[in-house]
């Protein structure tokens, strides 16, 4: 994903198609971008320092920028990204939300709510409840998958027989792997 975005970034980096071919110069940059504003007071963290403090990789920070989750406060005259102190808290927020299973899109929603005066605590609670329901559904589905696998494992004695006699493959081929009937049909008698 990150490599795809990086290549996309490279493609969009220079508007002039011949840029970069002249005298080995770096590709021409667009005339103006959001990032090329002067860094405000307090924006002292370079991307490297931010990455070190938050234990988040440089690629991930750039990826979050592409996803509009974390924008630099500005850039130096040489074009390096600069972040304010609140970027540290924002990255910690993203990390914690990911630990709770939130997708980047959901994290974006949470961050928008956080900075929206019209949003209320109940909006966040509703999102958290929806997420919990999704996770519980996944757990239920995965438990069923695990049980189906247990049944398949149980029907195989693990002997060194030829692959053509493999009861697990036979059960999967028969499309009956999920039913208890399969378990009885393919169970080898001792």
């Amino acid at each position, binding site marked *: 994903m990150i490599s795809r975005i990086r290549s996309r970034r490279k493609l969009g980096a220079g508007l002039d198609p011949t840029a970069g071919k002249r005298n080995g110069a770096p590709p021409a940059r667009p005339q103006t971008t959001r990032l090329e504003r002067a860094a405000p007071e307090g924006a002292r963290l370079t991307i490297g320092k931010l990455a070190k403090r938050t234990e988040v990789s440089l690629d991930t920070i750039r990826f979050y920028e592409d996803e509009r989750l974390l924008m630099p406060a500005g850039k130096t005259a040489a074009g390096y990204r600069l972040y304010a102190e609140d970027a540290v808290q924002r990255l910690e927020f993203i990390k914690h939300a990911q630990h709770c299973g939130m997708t980047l899109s959901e994290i974006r929603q949470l961050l928008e709510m956080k900075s929206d005066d019209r949003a209320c605590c109940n909006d966040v609670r*509703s999102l958290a*409840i929806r997420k919990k*329901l999704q996770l519980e559904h996944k757990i239920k589905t995965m438990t069923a998958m695990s049980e189906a696998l247990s049944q398949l494992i149980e029907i195989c004695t693990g002997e060194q027989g030829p692959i053509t006699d493999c009861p697990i493959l036979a059960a999967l081929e028969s499309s009956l792997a999920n039913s208890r009937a399969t378990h009885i049909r393919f169970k080898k008698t001792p």
Partner: protein
Amino acid sequence: MSIKVEVFSTPGCSRCEGARDSLKAIAQKFGAHEVTWRDVNVLEELDYAVQLGVLTPPSMAIDGELVFAKLPTRAQLREELVRRLGRERA
């Protein structure tokens, strides 16, 4: 046998409460012998909600089946209940 309507929601959602009361009135018009109503707190009955496939409360189940993932309009609920009652009588 009466039709069982269950509405899954979370307490504290004022929008849900307004819509739910309006739908409850529709269900109650049929009479308790025809349609029963139950409010389900998703957080208190999480397993049941998951079992029925509730993902985005408020949702509505009828006779143990998730019929409306989002709350229906009054007309949609009335239509669904009439259809089911008609089927039961047939």
